[in-house]
């Protein structure tokens, strides 16, 4: 068993909480970029929230975008640096709350970037508020009695919203457990392959634990993710499948 971090992870700074999935996602992206031989050219755009901390541990040229504008920032960058693969990395708050318009229209126009959305069903950076992805009954700092899904809606499912869009790849993975992590890596790889083939928007949502803001121990977080989150957010490929 090989236990070596990818060269493109620097370890100079690492700001994620114990049990968080961001570190795993960052590693998978670095591994895929290296294995596919595009690490020298990869450009990334990160949101201002937790995911932006990859700026400090990734050895990639990176742009930090405004909250929820990561995807359109990446689109502008890709249209300028057409020979570079461009990856947008951001969370569910950015994707499905403040950046919902950007998310939907990138899908509608089938924009030629990789989107990696880390979904932890909560606003992490601001301390655990309810998100459009929060589960019914989920306790957060802005829904202390549990999310009332009648008032605030069911968790947002991108695969349903994108059902009519002609995009090359849409998948959801999970960042807990070796089998899921391996599967998530294959999804990311598939997204890279199709992106390098200029097929359009390659979209991977990754379910991540957020032990700090869920107020759960890491192992309980893993359980919550696999037993509760996946009821609302099924894992798998929804468009352009057969990731091997």
């Amino acid at each position, binding site marked *: 068993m090989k236990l070596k971090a990818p*060269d*493109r992870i620097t370890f100079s700074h690492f700001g994620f909480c114990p049990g968080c999935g961001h570190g795993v996602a960052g590693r998978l992206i670095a591994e895929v970029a290296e294995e596919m031989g595009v*690490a*020298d*050219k*990869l*450009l990334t*755009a990160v949101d201002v929230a937790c995911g*932006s901390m990859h*700026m400090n541990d*990734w*050895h*990639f*040229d*990176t*742009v*930090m*975008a*405004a909250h929820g*504008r990561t995807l*359109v*920032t*990446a*689109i*502008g*960058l*890709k*249209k*300028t*640096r057409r020979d*570079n693969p461009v990856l947008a990395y951001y969370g569910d708050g950015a994707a499905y709350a403040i950046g919902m*318009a*950007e998310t*939907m*229209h990138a899908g509608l126009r089938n924009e030629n970037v990789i989107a990696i959305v880390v979904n932890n069903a909560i606003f992490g950076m601001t301390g655990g508020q309810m998100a459009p992805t929060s589960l019914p009954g989920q306790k957060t700092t802005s829904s202390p009695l549990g999310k009332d899904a009648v008032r605030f809606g069911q968790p947002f499912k991108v695969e349903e919203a994108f059902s009519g869009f002609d995009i090359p790849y849409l998948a959801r993975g999970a960042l807990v457990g070796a089998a899921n992590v391996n599967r998530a890596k294959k999804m990311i790889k598939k997204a890279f392959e199709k992106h390098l083939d200029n097929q359009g928007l390659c979209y991977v949502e990754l379910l991540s634990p957020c032990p700090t803001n869920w107020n759960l121990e890491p192992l309980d977080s893993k359980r919550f993710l696999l037993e509760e989150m996946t009821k609302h957010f099924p894992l798998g490929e929804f468009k352009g499948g057969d990731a091997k």
Partner: protein
Amino acid sequence: MSERVLMKGNEALAEAALRAGCRFFAGYPITPQTEILEYLSWRMDEVGGSYTQAESELAAVNMVYGASSGGARALTTSSGPGFSLKQEGISYLCGADLPAVIVNVMRIGSGLGNIFQGQGDYWQMTRGGGHGDYRTIVLAPNSAQENADLMVLAFDLAEKYRHPVLIASDAAIGQSIEAVELPEFRDHDLNKYDWPVRGAKADEPIRTVKNVFYSMGDAYEDYLRDKYAQIEAEEQRWESIQVEDAELVLVAFGISSRVCEEAVEGARAKGLKVGLIRPITLWPFPVKAFEKAVNAKAFLTNEMNLLGQTMDDIRLATGCRVPVYHSGSIFAITDTNDLIVRIEEVMEEVKGGGQ
């Protein structure tokens, strides 16, 4: 050789952007700016650039942020309500030291207002319309020709200072068809500077575009103060007409300045000592121009807003030594003859003891 053509002001601005090396545009339709978007929707392809009709002004300006991060000469344009939506992006461009050009083809009113020419966005444009501690260079053309000329200058200044530059055009300039000498085509190299992202080998240092504050820490304050001080010292631009002996100096930018030029002629023909200062940079405000107005007993602005938005800057530039009067309407460009009547009124009032 430069071409001389008959063009709408909006189209002259769009064509000049391409000739200045702009190869990225993202925008959203709004009157009276829309011809810029329409023109670039077909013309950008011809020069091999990227055109996007975005889902909103917010998306458009943030696409510009991304394009600029990659080293592009990037443009977005809007008007009034849409320009307000650009403010998030402009603030972020400033925070990340990114050049870009953002055009506001001004219309009247707060809220929806209306699509007629206006100059009510002066405060928003010159004070930094978004959150935080910033201002931007603001260039104010008064013709289709200057729409073209100042577009080229805007990209040069944006790059020089790594800072967004705004252009304050308006519906009258944008919609009028005038003769324009278009600038020559210039190439722009994405790698002209070292800072744009382009990809890093494992043994190379990476480039990150982000809050400059993050990377600079304590040195950021001095850096910012110096940057703004340099712009104020070096970038003031204006046109002066018969200012030195003038007892009344008109102050007007954009389309209003052309009425004022006529009014100066008309007033002089009546024996009135009247001059004109036309700010071309709204920020930095051309304070230096006012040093020559040594005989001025008063200043009279003409601007298409009700609150006399340039008056404060004139008072600051002149140390409140003489009174500042306002003229102008949001419903029309002032008629030259009406302005001359107002000039006579003000001169009479000043003679009688002033404001």
